[in-house]
């Protein structure tokens, strides 16, 4: 192999460093969305079904805004998945002959399972949209002509298999973010002996808060705290 000539037009998308930047930037967009989504969902604890329904109405108030947000998220998910798939192919080619014995010193369960937690989360996202946006899994509850988000959520989570899948997906999301929320800083070049340990703690904390927050809702429905 000879020294390579740098061709600018296709260069950015060709190196793995650039692909990791794509993963990090799209990851951060999705993370931002998750924070907002959890904050909205927690309105279900306000004791007043109207609170979360009003919030849902607000989100749908302006179709251009709604669709802009949806398209941004969709594009982020697609780019994230494309970059993940390309990187995975690169990695598969990198070691044609494996080891008989290989320890996993230094890495952790979350970092090694990104390629599993990611696709399962993707399946979950499709299921979730079919469930609570499209109403194809459990019919959506209605309050007059308006969708009744509060009761739709409760109807869904009373089905144990649905709750179980939500909980499983959120545990995997926790793992994905435990590694991802720290790794994304590294990918865009942010690292410092003093702050990187703090970033790792930030990642673990947010991964946990998000997972516990989301999981609490199906659990609360099942044990009857929300009804």
């Amino acid at each position, binding site marked *: *192999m000879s*020294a390579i000539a740098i061709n600018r037009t296709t260069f950015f998308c*060709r190196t793995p*460093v650039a692909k990791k930047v794509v993963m990090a930037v799209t990851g951060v967009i999705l993370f931002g969305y998750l924070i907002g989504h959890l904050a909205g969902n927690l309105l279900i604890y306000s004791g007043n079904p109207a609170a979360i329904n009003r919030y849902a109405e607000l989100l749908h108030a302006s179709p251009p805004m709604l669709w802009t947000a949806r398209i941004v998220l969709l594009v982020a998910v697609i780019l994230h998945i494309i970059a993940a798939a390309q990187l995975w192919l*690169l*990695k598969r080619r990198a070691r044609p002959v494996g080891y*008989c014995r290989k320890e996993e010193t*230094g*890495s952790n369960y979350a970092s090694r399972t990104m390629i599993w937690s990611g696709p399962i989360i993707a399946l979950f996202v499709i299921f979730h949209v079919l469930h609570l946006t499209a109403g194809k899994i459990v019919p959506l509850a209605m309050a007059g002509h308006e969708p009744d988000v509060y009761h739709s959520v409760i109807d869904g989570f009373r089905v144990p298999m649905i709750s179980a899948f939500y909980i499983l997906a959120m545990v995997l999301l926790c793992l994905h973010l435990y590694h991802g929320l720290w790794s994304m*800083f590294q990918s865009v070049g942010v690292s410092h002996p003093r702050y990187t340990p703090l970033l790792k703690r930030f990642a673990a904390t947010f991964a946990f808060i998000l997972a516990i927050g989301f999981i609490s809702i199906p659990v609360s429905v099942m044990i009857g705290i929300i009804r």
Partner: protein
Amino acid sequence: MKLTLHIWRQANSTAPGRMVKYEVDDVSEHMSFLEMLDVLNEKLTLKGEDPIAFDSDCREGICGTCGFMVNGVAHGPLPKTTVCQLHMRHFKDGDVLYLEPWRTRAFPVIKDLAVDRSALDRIVAAGGFVSIDTGAAPDANAIPVPKERAEISMDAAACIGCGACAAMCPNGSASLFTGAKITHLGVLPQGQPERNERALRMVAQATEEGLSYCSNHGECEAVCPKGITLEVIARMNRHYIKAEWVDRGQPAE
């Protein structure tokens, strides 16, 4: 002490290889790992068998020539230690050890435990240099280098290019190596003129060699005999990203 070794034997780069079992008696705890293999090789030679090929040169942990996997860990179980500096006192009687060559597409096996690491040389050739005038040596202190910068550079320059990072990486990436080389020159004033091109070219060359990407697992950092940390990989990413933004590039050749 007595050890059981399972060693990868492969006659040449194209022959199929396999693990072969050897029993070694009378291993002294004062031997280094490589001396233990020397003893085994003496016996194999006397028996008329082909000795086990492995690389070594300085045997004092500074040249980066040695290296193979011991029980699934690059350079064996002792942190920050090359396999030539690993002593048998860290093992005990009856231990079973698996020795395998570095496994990465970029490092084809030459024979047994010896691999071809010239991919790393080509990465350095792609950008791991600074341009200086020939002629009279410049005055030593003409270019001030801040202490912190010098420290970062020297820490990265400790890289001996052994390839353990790529061998250990679950993805088969040599980012710790490439990052160390980019950091070593890229943080110094002398390294500034080529800074952008260095990052672009070295990353591109590593990709060209079939070395994959960094997932920030940290297994490289755990086995690096020189204690180089993931910080160099972040710095490589930073230099690369900045270069992408500011470098106009060259006309295609």
